[in-house]
């Protein structure tokens, strides 16, 4: 939390958005920011992903000019925190089935329902909430303090401990009419946000992988067993070489995705491929690094176990690993296998 104003000052929030107090960086630069933040901790990168790609992006892309002017400069500066409410207790991989509902009631909308697993929820001053209005998914901006809205924090996580995860509860939550995002209808809205965030995650996960790799290299050079540094054993070297190989391939994938995103040519299936691959290899690298550190690997003195536990969340959120397999499968075969 204490890092937020500083991150805002550095211009890292909504960094790839043009105008409204945002830096207007390229997508490659945005990716590098995610990589370096996640080298520290996935929770920090999650904060930045949610703020920029999931909360600011929909306001920028689907909001009115008044909404953009009201929220974006404050959010870019880190003075306003945003969250993104899509997932529900009974609808995770299948968000289209959501139950949260909005009803048109004269000069306001009334929201009812509950969201779960919402990053930044309790901290947020502004929530971009997806709910069905007349059976169609629409985006709404709910502000902290709106009547009927609460955001209790979820506890007991073994992963992403540096990130706040919350429920969002709407009980006859009444918001003014001008809080609907007019620019989008249906799942395209949230998916557009997720595609931006997933792109950043494909870079971010590599940051965590690099931290684990570097820790493993250092540790293996100094840990002596059988009178030799363990780095001198072929099995250890093979593991390190494999890590470097996978990180390098992942970087090439992310970099290429970034360059074609800058040209406006990146398709969602390519984002799925990059997110799926890079989180997967990052998790495997974290586990291998944990192994190389021996018993020390489970200690908080080394970053590997923390990254490993974090990456379990990253593997699941923003489309689980297998949901991305299904997205690619559909693209390859033309046959959907979700249902």
């Amino acid at each position: 939390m204490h890092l937020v104003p500083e991150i805002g000052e550095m211009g890292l929030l909504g960094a790839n958005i043009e105008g409204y107090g945002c830096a207007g960086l390229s997508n490659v630069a945005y990716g590098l920011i995610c990589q370096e933040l996640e080298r520290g901790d996935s929770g920090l990168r999650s904060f930045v992903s949610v703020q920029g790609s999931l909360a600011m992006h929909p306001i920028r892309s689907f909001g009115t000019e008044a909404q953009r002017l009201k929220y974006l400069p404050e959010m870019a500066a880190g003075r306003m925190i945003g969250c993104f409410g899509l997932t529900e207790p009974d609808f995770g991989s299948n968000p289209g089935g959501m139950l949260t509902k909005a009803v048109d009631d004269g000069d306001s909308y009334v929201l009812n329902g509950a969201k779960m697993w919402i990053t930044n929820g309790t901290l947020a001053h502004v929530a971009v909430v997806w709910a069905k209005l007349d059976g169609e998914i629409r985006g709404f901006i709910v502000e902290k303090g709106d009547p009927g809205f609460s955001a209790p924090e979820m506890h007991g996580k073994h992963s992403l401990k540096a990130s706040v995860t919350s429920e969002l509860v709407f009980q006859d939550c009444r918001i003014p009419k001008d809080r609907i995002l007019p620019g989008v209808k249906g799942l395209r809205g949230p998916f557009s946000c997720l595609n931006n965030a997933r792109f950043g995650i494909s870079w971010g996960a590599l940051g965590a992988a690099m931290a684990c790799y570097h820790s493993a290299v250092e540790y293996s050079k100094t840990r002596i067993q059988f009178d030799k540094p363990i780095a001198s054993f072929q099995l250890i070297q093979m593991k390190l070489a494999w890590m470097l190989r996978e990180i390098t391939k992942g970087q090439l994938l992310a970099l290429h995705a970034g360059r074609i995103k800058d040209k406006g040519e990146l398709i969602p299936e390519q984002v799925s491929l990059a997110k799926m691959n890079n989180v997967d290899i990052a998790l495997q690298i974290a586990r291998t690094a944990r192994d190389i550190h021996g018993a020390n690997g489970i200690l908080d003195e080394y970053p590997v176990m923390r990254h490993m536990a974090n990456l379990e969340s990253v593997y699941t959120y923003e489309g689980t690993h297998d949901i991305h397999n299904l997205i690619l499968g559909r693209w390859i075969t033309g046959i959907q296998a979700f249902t």
Partner: protein
Amino acid sequence: MKVGVLLKQVPASDTIIKINPDKTGIVTAGIKWETNPYDELALEAALQLKDAGKATGVVVLTVGAADADARVRDALSRGATEAIRVDEASVVGSDSLGTARALAAAAKAAGVELILAGKQAIDTDSAAVPAMVAELLGWPQVSVVTGLTVDGGKITAERNAGGGFIEVVSTSVPAVITCDKGLNTPRFANMKGIMAAKKIPIEVKSAADLGLSAGQVGAAGALVEESGLELPPPRPSSKIIQGATPEAKVKELVRLLRDEAKVI
């Protein structure tokens, strides 16, 4: 009022300096350059004046080759609004006076009314250029400043007078001020600043462009000739006194102080 900031790139403070074989300069290959830290204080002071609406623009003034552009760009990213680089090639061989002439001419060309500079550059430590610039322009100078307020055209500067005393100096623009540690904490460039700075051109001018004649700059205009450059002699190695007991060590120390160092 436009404020000019004199900015010099210097080898990073942790550089291990090597002298070139003909002893005319240092080996620059492989050196990491950074902005002279005292100049960063000057830049920050100028940016604060701009933020407070007291300066209409902040002009970075430097003498250097194209490799100095990275430092100038960093200053623009932090919020400077213009930059003039006097091309090193047109003043090569200058002493402090030649550099000061180039910077004073650049400051005039930019139309600045206040010049802020570091109290010295951490490479040569001459602390000469800002005073010379003031003299060339006929402006007052306040040096080694740790506090600064500018109101209208009036300047109040605080100097650390030693012994815990603060000397307060008043003057008015146009003036040259040199900055010392404690004046402020320089900001970092943020992403927005980096993007905005990309659109600002760095004006590259030769001495001739600034109306200086060949005799005023370069070796021809120099009053000081550098005859050679040498590293300080290596420190004599120290001796660690061995001994079984503290008493034996002290005895040996006293013997060495008397017989070898001949100080007791």
